[in-house]
């Protein structure tokens, strides 16, 4: 069993407990879709395309007072260490798609587009822990790129606990360890409201608050990163248009 925290207090990938992985992202990376984004956090990498709002293609799902959000999540077979092809009906994929849909439904101002549809297609290229957080951050970027009105950004981060030390942004090794409780949280940075909270492990109730606080700090940092990426694209386009 590998030590997750060294005696010096460093993690398996050399990070300090409260250190996020390196985030690199870019909006407008594809041309067919209305909006798109590429986002990587450490070695977890995801590509998102957003279409819409457009005429609904699923008649049965049409809502008369708002737009309907459709999410599809795919994983590239080469994304994991052991190659694995997943079927489109894989429960884990559907669950993540559903979590993303539920997270964005209250944030996208869907009431502006009755009877329409908005599609979010995500493709995971590389998996190294924190799939859901990465997908949410990437989807936020792609939705903004498509010019779809949002009440706020949605920023997600994970946090966990190793030997009484709260740690931020778990990688795959940490996530896979059965002793490490981990939690994914997504917040709306403007109001500080929680948009999503998921934990699938046992944790003492007193410690929950501590790691939620840690994760929220992570979210704020990610908000800054996303906002910078959005501002940069907006500025570039504005300059090109006014040249």
């Amino acid at each position, binding site marked *: 069993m590998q030590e997750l925290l060294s005696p010096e207090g460093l993690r398996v990938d050399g990070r300090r407990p409260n250190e996020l992985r390196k985030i690199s992202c870019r909006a407008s990376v594809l*041309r*067919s879709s209305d909006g798109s984004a590429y986002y990587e956090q450490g*070695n977890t990498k995801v*590509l998102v395309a957003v279409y819409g709002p457009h005429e609904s293609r699923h008649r049965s799902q049409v809502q008369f007072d708002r737009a309907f959000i459709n999410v599809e999540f795919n994983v*590239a077979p*080469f994304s*994991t260490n052991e190659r694995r092809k997943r079927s489109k009906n894989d429960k884990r994929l559907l669950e993540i798609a559903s979590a993303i849909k539920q997270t964005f439904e209250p944030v996208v101002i869907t009431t502006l587009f009755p009877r329409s549809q908005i599609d979010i297609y995500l493709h995971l290229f*590389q998996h190294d822990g924190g799939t859901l957080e990465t997908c949410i951050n990437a989807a936020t970027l792609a939705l903004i790129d498509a010019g779809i009105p949002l009440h706020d950004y949605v920023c997600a981060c994970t946090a966990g606990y190793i030997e009484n030390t709260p740690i931020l942004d778990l990688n795959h090794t940490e996530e896979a360890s059965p002793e490490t409780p981990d939690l994914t949280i997504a917040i709306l940075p403007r109001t500080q409201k929680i948009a999503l909270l998921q934990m699938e492990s046992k944790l003492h109730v007193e410690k929950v608050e501590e790691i939620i606080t840690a994760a929220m700090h992570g979210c704020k940092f990610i908000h800054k990163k996303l906002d910078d990426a959005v501002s940069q694209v907006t500025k570039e386009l504005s300059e090109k248009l006014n040249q």
Partner: protein
Amino acid sequence: MSTLLLSPVERDYITKGIEKGIRADGRDRLDWRHLQIRQSIISQANGSARCRLGNLGFGTDILVGIKAEIGQYTQGDSNNPSSQKIVCNVECSPSAMQEFEGRGADEVNLELSQLLDRLLNGPQCGIDFDQLCIIPKQAYWVLYVDALVLDYDGNPIDALMMTTRAALADTRLPKVVVESITDENGVLQQEFEVVDDPQAAEPLKGRDNIPLTVTLYQIGGNYVVDTGLQEELCTKARLTVSVNPAGEICGIQKSHTKSGFAPSALPEMLKVSQKQASVLFTKLENELAKSSNDNQMDVDDGDSFEPDTGSTFLVPF
């Protein structure tokens, strides 16, 4: 959605234009769009490449990742020693076209996967399958070729084959040490160990012989190469010819059943394909040489990032 709709007058415009030898974007019948390609972009794969066939950031965009994994020999596999050593899988992502959502791409995925499989599995592929064998009748390497179609603007087959060839050329097979031990019954047993050193990994033998494909699309009474999406919608029949660098034909497939070719037209079409393939080989080589120069420049800049999946997305090419 109207991506796949075309009016009768647009159809007529495209068809008549090809008849006159000038396509809607000004190209001649045998002109290709701009090709861009980058290798080694997925760090966890043994080889990878991303290619875009189109102009100014638009076009068909394909990402291929190759993983080498060890397959165990099971009884009955020996019928055809070279079969199933390369496993091909093509997925069209809905990011390319909304029609690919859900099960919408199943048919085209299957068609492209099978096509790729037939081009690669067998001696026509050109790579040395003996290299994939670790211990005869016991263990061998399986190459998983996984392709993603991320953006779509026609002519997927030729783009797919170019990306795959570039990704296979980029593939490094980990070094394996085989040891022979005699057990207590006096039977010779062989065991192997994979050396965990990227420096020791070896490129695929025969990677330079991998063929490319040239697909001729029949529109009206003429044929063209490298169709855009709208031209593809006007296509009546399609002939894919696979040609290796020596100019030998390694495979032919006719698909799309709206109409057929006259047998008398075939010899000329094959000749055209051969000629176009040599054009493509040159294009691919030039583009790969250019991209490796680009990587060189990054190092000079003191940029310590390894090329990874991000490089082509974060710094668009």
